[in-house]
């Protein structure tokens, strides 16, 4: 048993996580953070990367599983692996670049050379060893034993007892499929990112990911900016939050295993072009809309919708959030520091119906729509996350509440598939995901690594 396991075994998790509130130490205790990096970011499926980032054999991208530096490779046989970025000799990281194409990684410190399937190929002057390390499997790189993809999204876990990724995702696969399939051929390509750091615990971002209660207040500057022109025919962006959001058709749904889903699509006019009509104003949009409408007439709206921000939040515990057209990843750095990476996505003209000009116009516009929220919305949220972290220094005031909607008869409905559905501002998703967090922290899943034989 590790030092951290022993220390955190003494915690009374049922006291720290109650039905309506959680203890501040979940956000402020470095020992709890260390335990999370094992039991959560290790003990369950964690998102690593998208297959479009390593499309060719021998492509790699560096990633993290919790704090563990990884090299995610597509090896020479095409197998996707998550290698520990740690030389088996002295512990040095082997790869210091973000991405590239390499069949082998040579340690910069003593020159040990590893294939991208993890096998040690050779070491300098092997006759200085009683037995050549390259002939001993214990010197092959450690790798994450379970790596699986769901429709291009690569996940990994150190917990061999986990069910398959597909089973673990369960009901959240439906909105995920819909999000993917709205793009031609169900294909997306990751293309650079907006990257924002905040000085706060990673769970503050996950708590926020399905939160419909904060929108009108935390994002007031964005909502006012999006609607600063009075002559627009439709209200833009998330304006539907202004009028009794719990009475709107949008909803929050808890999908099991810590995943949850905010669906704002029912608020839209159910027509082609309905999404584009509420898109806030971005560079080049009138030019592209005018050009496509004059060329394609009514059909232009379906192209324009592809550049619009899909109004969903698909949150996959613990570190993945799909919103608009973004793939957002939460990367914990320490108990009070987190990186949020908002990967952009572009589309392909899979069946040739768009042609290169339209594809270029739509993808260009899609870049501009995706830059909007990180610039004018997320910066205010992360400021509030940081100020929560600061407020929690008032240690004597111990509890953080998530009781909105609790104990109101008929407010939350249990659907046939066991998922829970409630009004948009309900905190049911926080109450439920933190139970999954507690289960992992209590059970301390057994973690293992694997090496090539």
């Amino acid at each position: 048993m590790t030092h951290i396991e022993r220390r955190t075994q003494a915690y009374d998790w049922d006291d720290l996580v109650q039905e309506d509130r959680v203890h501040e130490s979940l956000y402020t205790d470095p020992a709890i953070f260390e335990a999370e990096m094992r039991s959560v970011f290790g003990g369950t499926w964690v998102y690593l990367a998208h297959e479009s980032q390593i499309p060719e054999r021998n492509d790699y991208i560096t990633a993290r599983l919790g704090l563990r530096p990884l090299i995610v490779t597509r090896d020479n046989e095409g197998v996707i692996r998550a290698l520990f970025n740690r030389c088996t000799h002295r512990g040095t990281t082997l790869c210091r670049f973000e991405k590239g194409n390499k069949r082998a990684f040579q340690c910069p410190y003593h020159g040990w050379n590893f294939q991208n399937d993890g096998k040690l190929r050779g070491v300098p002057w092997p006759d200085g060893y009683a037995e050549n390390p390259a002939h001993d499997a214990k010197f092959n790189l450690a790798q994450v034993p379970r790596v699986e993809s769901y429709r291009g999204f690569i996940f990994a876990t150190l917990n061999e007892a986990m069910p398959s990724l597909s089973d673990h995702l369960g009901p959240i696969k439906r909105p995920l499929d819909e999000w993917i399939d709205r793009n031609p051929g169900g294909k997306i390509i990751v293309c650079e990112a907006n990257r924002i750091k905040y000085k706060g615990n990673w769970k503050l971002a996950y708590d926020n990911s399905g939160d419909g209660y904060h929108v009108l207040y935390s994002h007031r500057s964005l909502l006012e900016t999006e609607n600063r022109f009075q002559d627009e025919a439709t209200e833009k962006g998330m304006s539907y939050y202004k009028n009794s959001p719990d009475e709107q058709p949008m909803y929050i749904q808890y999908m099991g295993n810590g995943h949850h889903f905010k669906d704002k699509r029912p608020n839209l006019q159910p027509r082609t072009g309905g999404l584009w009509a509420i898109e806030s104003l971005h560079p080049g949009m009138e030019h592209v809309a005018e050009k496509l409408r004059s060329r394609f007439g009514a059909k232009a709206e379906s192209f324009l919708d592809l550049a619009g921000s899909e109004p969903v939040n698909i949150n996959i515990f613990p570190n993945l959030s799909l919103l608009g057209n973004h793939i957002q990843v939460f990367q914990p750095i320490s108990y009070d520091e987190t990186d949020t990476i908002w990967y952009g996505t572009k589309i392909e003209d899979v069946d040739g119906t768009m042609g290169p000009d339209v594809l270029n116009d739509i993808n260009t516009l899609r870049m501009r729509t995706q830059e909007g929220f990180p610039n004018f919305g997320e910066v205010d949220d992360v400021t509030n996350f940081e100020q929560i972290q600061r407020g929690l220094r008032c240690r004597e005031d111990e509890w953080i509440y998530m009781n909105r909607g609790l104990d109101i008869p008929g407010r939350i409905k249990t659907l046939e598939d066991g998922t829970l559905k409630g009004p948009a501002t309900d905190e049911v998703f926080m109450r439920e995901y933190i139970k999954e967090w507690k289960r992992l922290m209590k059970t301390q899943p057994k973690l293992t690594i694997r090496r090539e034989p």
Partner: protein
Amino acid sequence: MSTTSLSRDPARYSYYVDDAAYRELIADFHRIRTEEPTVEDPAERDFFRRLVEREARLLDRLDFTGWMASYADECFYWVPSTPNGGDPRSEIAVMFDDRRRLGDRVYRLSTGFAWSQAPSSRTVRVVSNVEVFDCLNADQKLVRSNFMINEFWDDETRVLAGWAGHRFRRYDGKWKISAKQVNLLQCDQCIRNPSIIL
């Protein structure tokens, strides 16, 4: 757009951001990135150095009205997310604004609800190494400069450093910023509270 107005005012409608404008942007800033500056006349260099310094002063004073007025009606403000500048048609940028989105940026700060700038950052900017490129068109100059933005916000003073490219154009005898590319050293890294105008 739903509006039937024939207005093309770039502060309100975005028609000028077309593929030709993107191609021109990429070509001009590629030149600043890769070629030798051509202007040797100290007076001309000094003229453009003063324009770059003036922009820094307006931003330090939070004089956004004056700052917006120093930009052309049809302008670009571009902070790439990759160290090689990249192609904004296929890559997300840290920021990529046309005239209207610059207006959004300034408007948001004025709402009183922009929590990331409440209170506002205080900045002092140092600009240096100003070099000027001639263009075929006598009413256009390209300028490269280095910058350090010292920013105080929320108990922390930090330095945002990098180099900027400016494309100046002359309209009715007056030089205005037609496009600015801000190349942050940490452009491809996570940045805390990236909400000031660079």
